[in-house]
């Protein structure tokens, strides 16, 4: 067992154990190993993320290469051969003859990319503004937090739609498609920064009156350095929790926007676009076009969400 190994290792050698080992042996890792929900969610998330990341090597077809699609393969049911072409598809094909299995892998890749990027964007923006607001206080704080309050009164999907629409108006027609994915990331990110800013601001206000910050201030450290070196590491815990849950929300936001038809182009479908396409065939019997991408989205969003929930509980000192 890890724990006994650690004890014997510590007893025989005075050298401190390696970083990896310390991470494995931390309270957090222990809590993870002993929580069945977190374990299962973690494994599912890792499998999906790996499969998505390795899509070009795993997927039997490239669904983003329109030239490789054979229209006559369209609507092939799962696990059967197409009646005209004789081609076989594990999870069937959609209306364009696209392999649903490959499309899910590539779609998840796109959804995850948008999700991670949007969360990162929101996090950097929210944490920076939260630190500034909490540390400076005064009118800067009031201004930033009132903007945040106003934004919180709108549903974030509405804000994302608004940003998406305005951004498209500014981008010249020829570049819109190439920029679509970045606009999507910025739209989702901008609609979500408030969560981070508010949490970080509160934590910063608590931290800034503590002695170590006062000490840094007394020796004349620049405010930017105090924020980055001293306060930031102490407020990152809750940010990571929000980030994890935010990832699930960002994936769903991307799916929603694509489902509404304002996301990525239909020739490069994300999970949301695949579900939008599949939804049109609900009544006509081609259930697989909708079901499999929907299940993939469900598994991905649920596992990330459960991980976030677990992380929140694990980091909460009151529940420990």
């Amino acid at each position, binding site marked *: 067992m890890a724990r006994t190994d650690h004890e014997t290792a510590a007893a025989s050698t005075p050298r401190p154990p390696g970083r990896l080992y310390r991470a494995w042996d931390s309270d957090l890792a222990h809590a993870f190993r002993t929580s069945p929900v977190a374990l299962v969610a973690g494994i599912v998330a890792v499998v999906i993320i790996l499969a998505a990341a390795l899509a070009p090597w795993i997927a039997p077809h490239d669904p983003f290469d*329109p*030239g*490789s699609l054979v229209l006559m393969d369209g*609507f092939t049911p799962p696990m059967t051969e197409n009646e005209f072409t004789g081609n076989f598809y594990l999870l069937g094909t959609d209306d364009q003859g696209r392999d649903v299995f490959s499309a899910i892998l590539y779609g998840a890749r796109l959804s995850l990319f948008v999700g991670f990027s949007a969360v990162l964007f929101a996090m950097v923006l929210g944490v920076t503004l939260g630190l500034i607001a909490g540390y400076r206080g005064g009118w800067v704080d009031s201004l930033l937090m009132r903007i945040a309050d106003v934004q919180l009164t709108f549903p974030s999907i509405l804000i994302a739609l608004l940003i998406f629409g305005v951004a498209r108006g500014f981008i010249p*027609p020829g570049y819109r*498609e190439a920029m679509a994915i970045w606009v999507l990331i910025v739209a989702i990110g901008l609609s979500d920064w408030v969560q981070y800013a508010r949490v970080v601001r509160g934590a910063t206000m608590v931290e800034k009156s503590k002695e170590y910050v006062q000490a840094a201030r007394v020796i004349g450290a620049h405010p930017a350095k105090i924020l980055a070196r001293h306060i930031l590491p102490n407020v990152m815990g809750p940010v990571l929790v929000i980030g994890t849950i935010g990832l699930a929300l960002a994936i769903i936001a991307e799916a929603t926007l694509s489902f509404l*038809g304002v996301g990525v182009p239909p020739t490069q479908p994300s999970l949301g676009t695949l579900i939008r396409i599949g939804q049109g065939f609900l009544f006509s019997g081609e259930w697989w076009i909708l079901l499999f991408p929907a299940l993939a989205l469900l598994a991905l969003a649920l596992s990330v969400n459960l991980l976030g929930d677990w992380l929140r509980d694990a980091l909460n000192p009151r529940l420990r």
Partner: protein
Amino acid sequence: MTFDRLPKARRSAALLGGAAVALALGAASAGAETIRWARVGDALTLDPHAQNEGPTHALNHHIYETLVGRATDGTLTPRLATEWGIHPDDDTIWVFELREGVTFHDGTPFEADDVVFSLERAMAETSDMKGLHGAVESVEAVDEHTVHVQMEGPAPLYVQNLTNTFIMNREWAEEHDVEEPQDFAGGEESYAVRNANGTGPYTVAERDPEVRTVLEYFGDHWAETPEVSEIIYTPIAEDATRVAALLSGEVDIVQDVPVQDIQRLQETDGITVETGPENRVIFFAYDMGSDELQTANVEGNPFADPLVREAMHLALDRDAIRQVVMRGQSLPTGVTMPPFVNGWTEELDEYPQPDYERAQELLAEAGYPDGFEVTLHTPNDRYLNDEAISQAYVGMLDRIGIDVNLVSQTRSLHFPLIQNRETDFYLLGWGVPTFDSQYIFDFLVHSTEGARGGWNGSRYSNPELDQKIEALATETDLEARNEMIAEIWAQVQEDRVFLPVHNQLLAYAMREGISLPVHPENQPSMTDVSFED
């Protein structure tokens, strides 16, 4: 469960409910029927001259009226004009005798002056209907119920152009500052966009664009009282949602039935499906006139090269699109003209089988051995499976090396791109309300000048052909005119101005007990609805 076994309280509730149903049925049988009508998209505007577009006209035909109407068999019917003909002494004048005793919804009587105003408005710069009135010189009210339309020359077929030109009230337009049509492509809003004052059988009771429109029967309408007294019109963009709305009884008629659901609806009890061909052709067009494309990654304009256009034609597999995307609900064609139209022939209708090798050779010959990149614009809520058709063609073009970025959007964003010449390559459907080739030539083939060429997004310009097209309007000898039409088509086909895909087949689905025949222009009138129960 029998009635006796119900507890007492429930029994009285059931009785009350029964009474309410009886009352509702009683009211219904008194000729006050509501029809709930759903289709994929909304009318783009209520301004009757701002957009020459099917769904817009379809709704406006209930509110406004035209001088002449078109029956489902293609013949002209009297509407606001009771009689019409060419002036006996001057073959350049059309005479219209107007219906008497007609009033607008606000109570103003309908007069010849309103026709003068409306035709002039339809010829204004911002009007999308002006292509239909290019040969008109002036309009004059001779007396209160007679109008003379002075043509530039003899125009024997002009009356055919009037089936979608609605008549407005001059005073109302002046009062609300809408004497000029809304500039739709320029994004203008005006009072006439959401409000209307027509002579049609229904008045606008509620207008919430893209959400819900309620029309109520106009009691002072001149014609026979229709069975439908109220229309609730709801656009539902999602295919499955629209079909679900019909299955759950939320709507009575679904006009744009998705091709994949026709069979299922036909097999469903309590649902009737009417099918028929539409007078509409679906095609791709490309900018072949500009020196440079806006979205291509190569210098110059590849579409200007006839070899590239031929290659693109050879890459289009119409039969596969028919079989998979349209599930058989289309008639593939090689010409941008539905079979309903004067000028159509079987030879023109023939289309080539795809030949990818030859297409690649042609591209290489044209100097694009590695192809090029370009953006294709497609609507996603206008024609049957429009986005899927475009997507399928993107795949076919990719096979010969043309790398296409697909931009799919709603039609209120798509159409202005074509009218403002902001797209290099696009999908469009064209219905022909005049049932004559000239309509296609005037809007799509003639150079963009004055009233003509409004939808010529190909930027095709052939002065010799322009002259022939203009001459069609005034040619009185029908045989000679048909020969000219054939000549023009021969040139259009030779130059491959368009890339025709197919003619649409229509399906309307409705709850049992309602009957509404398929209209070849896909502009059904709710006054034609009859109830069996």
